[in-house]
C-alpha cells in the first residue's frame, strides 16, 4: 500500500456525435513512490486519456485514480507534464519558459533561487548558455529538453510524459534517455511515461504496462529489474532481448484483440 499513483478499475468514455466512445474499461495501474512506469499500447487505445486522468484534467466515469492514497478530483500543482509537442511559449526566452510553472504554483523560493534552480536544470540537460534564446532558435531535441526542465522546475511529485521523445531522431532520443536517467538520479519524482518505443520503455522504466486495444484495460505488467542508471549496452543483453520479445508479443495480442472486436470497429 505504498503506491504513490494508484489507479483501480477505471472506466472512461468520451461523448462523441455518434454516442459515447468507451476508451478505458478496467484499467489498473500502480506506481510506487520514486518508481518509473512506462505505458505502451496500440495507437489510439487511450494512453493520453490515462495521463489526463492522472493529472486531474478529467475525472473518470467509474473507478478511482489516487495520488498518495487520496482520490484525484482536480488538477494539482504537484504534477509536471511534458508532451510530444514541447509547447514552449515563443514570446518568452528559454529561461522564462522554464520558470512558467513557478508563476502559477505557490513556492517558497525567492526569485534568485528560482532562477538558480531553473539554470541548474538547464545545465543538467545540456542547455547551459541557451537560457536567453528563443524557442525557435533551438533544435527539436533542445526544445524537448527545455520542456522537461519546465515540467520539473516546481519539484513535482509526479512527472507525466506523453511520448516526449516520439518526434525526435534516434540519436537525439538516446541522448535524452540518458538525460532522463540523470534527472531521475537527482530529482525525486515518480514517473509515468507513455511511449510507442519498447526499447525506450525497458531502458527508462522499472515497470512496463501493456494496455489492450481500445477500450483499454491493463493487459500485462512487466517488471524490469532495475539497479540505478543504465547504459545503452543494457538493451543488448539476453535478458533485455527476452523482455522486448515478450512486450512485442503482448502488443501483438492487444492489436489482434482490437481487430477481433467487430462491434468496436463498427463504432469507430
Amino acid at each position, binding site marked *: 500500500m505504498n503506491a504513490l499513483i494508484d489507479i483501480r478499475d477505471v472506466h472512461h468514455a468520451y461523448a462523441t456525435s455518434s454516442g459515447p466512445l468507451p476508451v478505458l474499461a478496467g484499467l489498473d495501474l500502480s506506481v510506487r513512490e520514486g518508481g518509473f512506469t512506462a505505458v505502451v499500447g496500440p495507437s489510439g487505445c487511450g494512453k493520453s486519456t490515462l495521463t*489526463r486522468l492522472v*493529472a*486531474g*484534467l478529467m475525472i473518470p466515469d467509474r473507478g478511482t485514480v489516487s495520488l498518495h492514497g487520496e482520490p484525484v478530483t*482536480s*488538477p*494539482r*500543482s504537484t*504534477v509536471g*507534464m511534458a*508532451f510530444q*509537442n514541447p*509547447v514552449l*511559449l*515563443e*514570446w518568452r526566452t528559454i529561461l522564462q519558459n522554464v520558470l*512558467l*510553472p513557478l*508563476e*502559477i*504554483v505557490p513556492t517558497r523560493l525567492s526569485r534568485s533561487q528560482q532562477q538558480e534552480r531553473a539554470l541548474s536544470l538547464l545545465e543538467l540537460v545540456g542547455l547551459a548558455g541557451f537560457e536567453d534564446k*528563443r524557442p*525557435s532558435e533551438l533544435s527539436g531535441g533542445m526544445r524537448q529538453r527545455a520542456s522537461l526542465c*519546465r515540467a520539473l522546475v*516546481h519539484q513535482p511529485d509526479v512527472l*507525466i510524459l506523453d511520448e516526449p521523445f516520439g518526434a525526435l531522431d534516434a540519436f537525439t532520443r538516446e541522448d535524452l534517455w540518458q538525460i532522463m536517467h540523470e534527472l531521475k538520479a537527482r530529482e525525486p519524482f515518480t514517473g509515468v511515461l507513455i511511449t510507442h518505443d519498447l526499447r525506450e520503455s525497458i531502458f527508462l522504466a522499472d515497470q512496463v504496462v501493456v494496455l489492450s486495444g481500445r477500450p483499454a484495460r491493463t493487459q500485462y505488467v512487466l517488471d524490469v529489474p532495475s539497479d540505478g542508471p543504465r547504459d545503452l549496452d543494457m538493451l543488448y543483453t539476453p535478458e533485455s532481448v527476452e523482455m522486448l520479445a515478450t512486450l512485442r508479443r503482448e502488443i501483438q495480442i492487444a492489436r489482434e484483440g482490437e481487430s477481433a472486436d467487430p462491434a468496436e470497429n463498427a463504432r469507430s
Partner: protein
Amino acid sequence: MSRKLFVPLIAFAVFLALWELLVWANDWPNYKMASPTDLVPAFVKYWELFLSMGWQTLWRTVVGLLLAVVVGVLLGMVMGFSRTMRDALYPLLVGFNAVPKATVVPIVALLFVGAHDFNTVLIAFMISFFPIAVSVSIGLSTLEPEYRDILRSLGASQFTIFRKIALPKTLPEFFGALKVAVTLAFIGTNLMEIVSPHGRGLGALFDSAKTNSDYPLMFAVLIALAFLGIVLYYVVVALESIFAGWAERSPS
C-alpha cells in the same frame, strides 16, 4: 537603418518624377490631372487648412479604431471561447460586414443629423471592427489544447491561462488584423466626411475643392490622405514590433 529610410525615399522621388513626366508628356491640363509641381502652391496656400482638417480626420479615425479594438476584441473573445456564440454571431457579423459601407454612410448621416463627429467615428468603427473580431476569435479557438493543459494541470484559473498564454499567442494575429483595420477606419472616416454636408476633415476639404473646381487642391488632398494613411499604418507596425516583435522571423 539609414538604408531602410533611403530606399523608400528614392522610390517616392521616382514615383513623383514619373507622375510629372506623364502629365508633361501628355500635356494634360491641371483639371484633368494635376502634376506634383501644381500641388506645391496648393499646399503652401492652404497649409493651415491642411493641418486643422488633417487633425480632424486623424483623431476621428483613431477614436473609431480604438472603439473597434475594444468591441472587436470582446466579440473575438466571446466567439473564441464559446462554440455556441461563434455559431450564433459569425453569420451575423459576416452579413453586417458584407453590406457596402457606402450605403450605410448616408443612412447614418440621416439618422444622427448634425452629429458629425459622432457619425464619422461611428462609421470608422463599423467598417473596421470585423477583421479584429475574426482574428481574435480564430487566434483563441485554434490554441492547441496542450498549451492550456500545461497551465491547467498546475491548477491555473481560466483567467491566468488567458493572460499568460491565449492573449500573447493571439497578438500577432491581432496586429495583422489591426493593420487592415487602420486602413479601413481611415476610409470610413473619409467617406463620412465627403458625404456629410458641412463636414470637416480632409474628406470635406476634398469635397469643397471639387465644388470649387480647384483641381490641384483635390490632388493635394489625396497626397495628404496618403501621407496620413502611411503614418497611421506605421504607428501600428511600430506597436506590433514592441508588443509582438517575437513573432517576427529574424531575416536569415
